[in-house]
Structures are given as C-alpha cells and as structure tokens.
C-alpha cells in the first residue's frame, strides 16, 4: 500500500492495556477527501483507534501516518490538532461556562500560544467566520447563550461547529447522533455530508439508518481489527459481521 495520497494510514497497529488487546494489528487507510463510517460492537476498539490517531494513546506497535508523511505516533494531541485533525467526543464536550460564541472563538484556527491569546482582539474576519459557522450549525440565535443551557443535540452540533472552526483536514466524529431525535439525525447527516465535500471524515456510529443515510464506505471493527470493509450492503451481508454485531 502506498502512503501517498492518503489522509490517514494505519498499518499493523496494536495496543494493549494490562494484557487486554484493545487494538490488534489494525490496518486502515483513508484517502484524501474520503468519508468513512466505522461500525462495530462495544469494545471493538473504535474509540481507542481515535485515541491513537489523535495522540492520546501511543500504540505498542504499528505505523500511523497522516497526510502521507507525518508519523502521528511522534506527536501529542495539541500538535496533531494543529496539523489538522479534529475530533468530536462520544459525549458532547463543550465549554459549558462559555457562550456559544466564545466556544467557537477558542476553536477558530489561529495561533495557539499564550501571549497572542492574552493580547488577542476580535477581528471582523473572525466574527464573519463565526457567523458562518453559526449558520451552518443552526445556532445563530443562541450566540450569547451559555453552552450549558443547550440541549444535548445542540451541544453535539456546537462541537461539530468547533471542529469546523478549527478547519481541519480530517475530522473524527464519534457517535454524532447519539441521543438525537430522528429529525435531528437527518439534519446531522446532511451537515456531515456538507462537511465531507471539502474535508476527510471518519464517523463512528451505531445508528444504521444514519450510516445508510451517509452512503459511504463502511469499516466494521471487531476485537481491535478490521472485520469487514466495503459498502454498507456488502458489510451487512458479511456473515461474520452479522454474527458479532448486527445480529440475526
């Protein structure tokens, strides 16, 4: 496999915690501009994989490359984030004692050191960017609300908005529709498809309807390695997937 032209390249990655192999010889390649859905039962290693990509967990062995040439195992979370990998957590994590606007302001792409932040003044360009994102995530009217006052679904969106503000090359989105109504789910799918037009995206999700709606290539993980990969129809037809995950 060639690394060039991939946005994310995992080869033979393993990691274990206290003897438990969370990721076992996992290989996964994501092309530039691709959106990929990852499914799999609990404990299949989905979140751990994201931890490895974002630098939170170091793999015991294996290669992890970003954009074809950057070895991600040598960098920490902040560096990786700066390179252009954004991540949304399973549980929506926003800054609850800040307003929506401030949340986005902190996420906006820009210098990430202390002193610029200390003497930072809002520019019109930044305000425009924030306006745009607020439009995309449909929170324009709540700009000055505290994030804590948002509903669960709105927090999910805000978090996605913060990812957008980061302007990453690759988005890792963990269970974006958990706890959402059907309408919200559809809305989110549309939003992600929008985003996927100019970003690479990995979506982890249990909701099969949602995955179907995304209409992208699917990878099924099981016990830390790839069980099956292909279109949703292909994967859901796979005997082993049915066995361990979808159920008969």
């Amino acid at each position: 496999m060639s690394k060039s032209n991939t946005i994310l390249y995992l080869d033979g990655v393993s990691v274990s915690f206290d003897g438990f192999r969370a990721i076992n010889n996992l290989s996964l390649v994501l092309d530039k501009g691709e959106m990929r859905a990852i499914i799999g039962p609990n404990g299949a290693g989905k979140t751990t994989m994201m931890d490895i990509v974002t630098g939170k967990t170091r793999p015991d062995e294996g290669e992890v490359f970003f954009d074809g040439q950057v070895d991600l195992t040598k960098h920490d979370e902040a560096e990786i984030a700066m390179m252009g990998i954004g991540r949304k957590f399973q549980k929506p994590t926003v800054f609850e004692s800040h307003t929506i606007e401030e949340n986005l302001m902190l996420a906006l792409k820009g210098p990430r050191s202390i002193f610029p932040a200390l003497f930072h003044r809002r520019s019109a360009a930044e305000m425009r960017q924030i306006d745009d994102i607020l439009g995309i995530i449909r929170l324009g009217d709540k700009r000055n609300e505290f994030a804590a006052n948002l509903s669960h679904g709105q927090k999910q969106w805000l978090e996605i908005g913060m990812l957008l503000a980061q302007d990453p090359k690759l988005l890792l989105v963990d269970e974006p529709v958990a706890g959402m109504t059907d309408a919200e789910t559809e809305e989110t799918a549309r939003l992600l498809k929008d985003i996927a037009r100019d970003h690479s995206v990995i979506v982890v999700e249990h909701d099969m309807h949602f995955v179907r709606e995304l209409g992208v290539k699917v990878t099924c993980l099981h016990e830390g390695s790839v069980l099956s990969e292909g279109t949703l129809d292909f994967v859901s037809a796979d005997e082993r997937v049915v066995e361990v995950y979808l159920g008969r």
Partner: protein
Amino acid sequence: MTARVRTASSAVRTPNSTFFKGHLEPMNLFRAIGLTLLFLLATLSSSGASEADLRGIIAKFATAKGFSEIGAVVHELAATGDPAVERPLAALADGNLYVRKADSLVFAGKEAGESVQLSNPLSGEASGEAAKDDITKIKVNNTLRRVIRDALGTLTLGAKDPAVRIAAADTMFKTPDAANIGPLDTAIASESVASVKALLEQARAASVLVSDQPEADKLAAIALIGARGDRDAVSLLTSVEANSTDAVKEAATAAIANINSTLAFWDAGQNIWYGISLGSVLLLAAIGLAITFGVMGVINMAHGEMVMLGAYTTFVVQQVIRTSFPDLFDWSLVIALPLAFLVSALVGLIIERGVIRFLYGRPLETLLATWGVSLILQQAVRSIFGPTNQEVGNPSWMSGSFNVGQLAITWNRLWILVFALTVFAVLLYVMKRTPWGLQMRAVTANRRMAASMGIRTPWVDALTFALGSGIAGIAGVALSQIDNVSPNLGRGYIIDSFMVVVFGGVGNLWGTLVGAFSLGIVNKFLEPYAGAVLGKIVVLVLIILFIQKRPRGLFALKGRAVEA
C-alpha cells in the same frame, strides 16, 4: 556460696601499681577500694558477716554525706560477700531506702500515698508506717547505681536464675577488673548452661585484659572477645588498645578492625530493619487512607485525627485499667484495639453521613471540608483532654529489645510490624473474600450497575468510610506506643500517609504496602548520610519527581482513558 567466697579469697591479689596505671579515674578508684575491702573482709570472715555486723554497716547510711560516702558504705556492704545485702542494695538502687529522722534508723520503704510503708532492710519484715515528712530518702545517682550494679554483679554470679547470672556476667564484662578473675573461674567451673558459660568466659577474658597476666593469656583473651563481635567488645578492645603495647595492642587493633567489618554488614541489616519498622508505621498510618482515598476517592484530611482518636482511646482504656483493674495492664492494648476501632469508625460514620456524602464527586471540596473537620476534632480533643501529652504506657511484652546476631530489635517495633502486616492481611481478606468486600469493589467498579443489582450503595459508602476510619483508629493504638499522645498526633502523619498512598498507586492495597516499606527503607538509608531533615526532604522531592514520571503511582491501573 561460702565455698565460693573462700575460693575467691585465696585468689585475692592486692591491687598493685600496674593495675592503677592509666586507670586513675575516680570510678575505678571507687571500685578498687571497694574490691580491696571486699576481699580483705572476705578473708577475715570466711563464713560471711553476722546480721549484726550488716546492720551496723547499714546504719552508716544514716550519717553518710554525699554520694561518695554513700558509695563507700555500699562497698563496705558488698565486701561482706553476704548474699543478704542484696536486698538493701537493691532497695537503695531503686531509691527505696529511708532514714527515719527521729532515731536515724535505716528502713526499706514503699510509698503508699502520703505515707511510706517501712520494713527491715535486711529481712524485709514490716516495721510500720511513717509520714513522708518524718523520713528522709537516701538519694542515689547514676554513678552510685552503677557501683551498686557492679557490686551486685559479683554477688549474684552464683544465683539460681540463669538470667541473673547472665546479667552478672554482662556487668562484669562491661566493668572488667583483674580481681574478678578468681570468682569468675569458680563460676565457670560450676556453670552448667553453655550460653551462660560462654558469657562468663568472655567476662573472664575481659578481666584478664586489665590484669597483669602474661601476654599469651591476653592474646587468647583478645581472640575470645573478638569472637564475641559486638559493640561492647569493640568498646572494651578500644580501651585495651589505648592502654597496652606491642603484640597485645596489635592483636586488639586487628580484632577491632575485624569486628568493625562484620558490624558494617550488620549495620546495613540494621538499616533495613529500621526502614521496615518505619515502613510498618507508615503502612499503619496510610492503610486506612488507602481505603477511603483509594477505593472511594475521598480525600480525608481528618484521617490523622482518626489515628489520634485511636490513641486517645488507648489512653482512656489504660486510665480505666490503672484505676480499676491494675492486673489487666498488659492486656490494655488488646482491649483498646476493638474500642479504638469502634470509636474511630463511629466518628468516621458520622463524618460520612454528615458531611462527605453531600460532596461525592467533588474531591477538592471534600478535601477542604474534612480539613475543617480535622481542626474541629483537634480542638475538641484539646478542650476535653487538655493540650498536654497523655501518658500511654508500654505493656511489658512491648518493652525492651532482643538481639538477632548483632541486630538489636526492639519488641515494640517488632509487634507493630506484625500488627501492621496482620491488619493488612485481614483487610485484604475482607476486600477480596467477603461479600462486603465484593460489594465494595462492585460499587467502586460501577456504581450504577451495583445499585441496580440491589446493592445499597449509600450504605456501602458509609461502611467503607467507617472501615477506613476504624483502621486509622487501631493504627492509633499502635502509634500511641511510639509517639506522643497529644492533639497534634495526627498532623504528623497526614502528609506522609498521602505520600505513601499516592506513591504506591491509588486503589491498590499492595501498592500501599510496597510504597510504605520502600519509603521507609529509603528514608532510613538516607538518614545516616544526609541527616534526618535532609533525608526527609530528599524523599519528598523524589516522590514529587516520581509522580511526574508515573502520575498514577507505582501500581497504577492502566486502562483505556475514561474521558470522552
């Protein structure tokens, strides 16, 4: 006894000028005069002195002025060689000999409140009472006590009890005297217990070294003493080295070097023992914390005060025992243990129900609130018992020490070690093997799941906290044996306890065990080089650095990050 004295008298040698050379210290002068008198008198009266004679000598205590005159009377008494003088001499050493002001008669006495029960110093027959004001105590000081001990040493060489003979041999070893050789020879001849015999031979060798016997004998003596190999041997040989010449001096030097190299090895062992012993104290102090902090995540800053409550419980128990059941004193700690556990556990339960349960999930607030509780408990104890230290006595089985090789091991430290390990083992058992332990671990692992399975989680919390506090309480019983029992007792242990738990790894009892012993040993190895203060600072800095390296401690549980 008479036989012994007779033989002794035949071996009498008048102290000559060589004996005095280099020994003109007052102590030796005392002893020399005493021994001279002893043997002169012994030659005169082959069958011991009559009781009237002894009475006459004892009466001199009434008129003796100052320690040196009293000392002279002691010598005179010892010189009679009569075993009957043991009683008055022992009474004198204990400060129980009195002079009645009215008639200047000497009595043994026993204090009973404001008056003193008098008895005949020789026979021990009771002879009435006297008010304290009517009698004068015959004062003794260290020097006199030593003189008496030496005198008694010679007198008790033939005692029935081997322990007394050992003590006598020991005394004579430490205070060698050429005149002792004779009596020792007799004693060695009739000694049947091998270990006592060896000691007597060493005592004899010591005496040979200060005599003017031939060089060959002295060299043999040095070899014998060198084989003894302890500090007392070094002490003796050092003075021999200083006071002799040529071959003897060389032999002494060699023997000292030899002993010192063995002792260096034992010193390392001793350090490890001290470390283990300190470790056991740390373990005791920290183990309760390992439960409240490690298992429940509750930062209990009042933990030290739980220890203090345990110590005060011990004090109260001993107080009751002293006034009401003096015979039970040796059992006081055993009685105090369950009570201390209950007292501290109860207070812990109250704290948990009253304060901590409202603060679960907010560890920093818990820290502050329990700190406040600790201030209140401290001041409460201070108000009730007063600010001064309280006396907690050591039961006899926790006093003194014994030797393993050249390792001096004190009983109280050993018992504390045993106790700490026992508590640890019991706790481990409770956690791993009992239904309650299972519930506790279940609640720790997954609270909601545990609750839905019918475990009453609030009760488990409360009881776990009470258990942790109760264990701190019984730690207090043990610590009362080696530390001050004062309202500040707990303060001294809280930081150390936290260090142990954090170092060992939170949530892991084995980590606490390893943490406590390794910190204890490191501390004790640093102490001789860096001094106590610097040693402690170094340990603290090491822990701070260690936590940077392993933020979750030595035995941390790894796992997929919980966050996100």
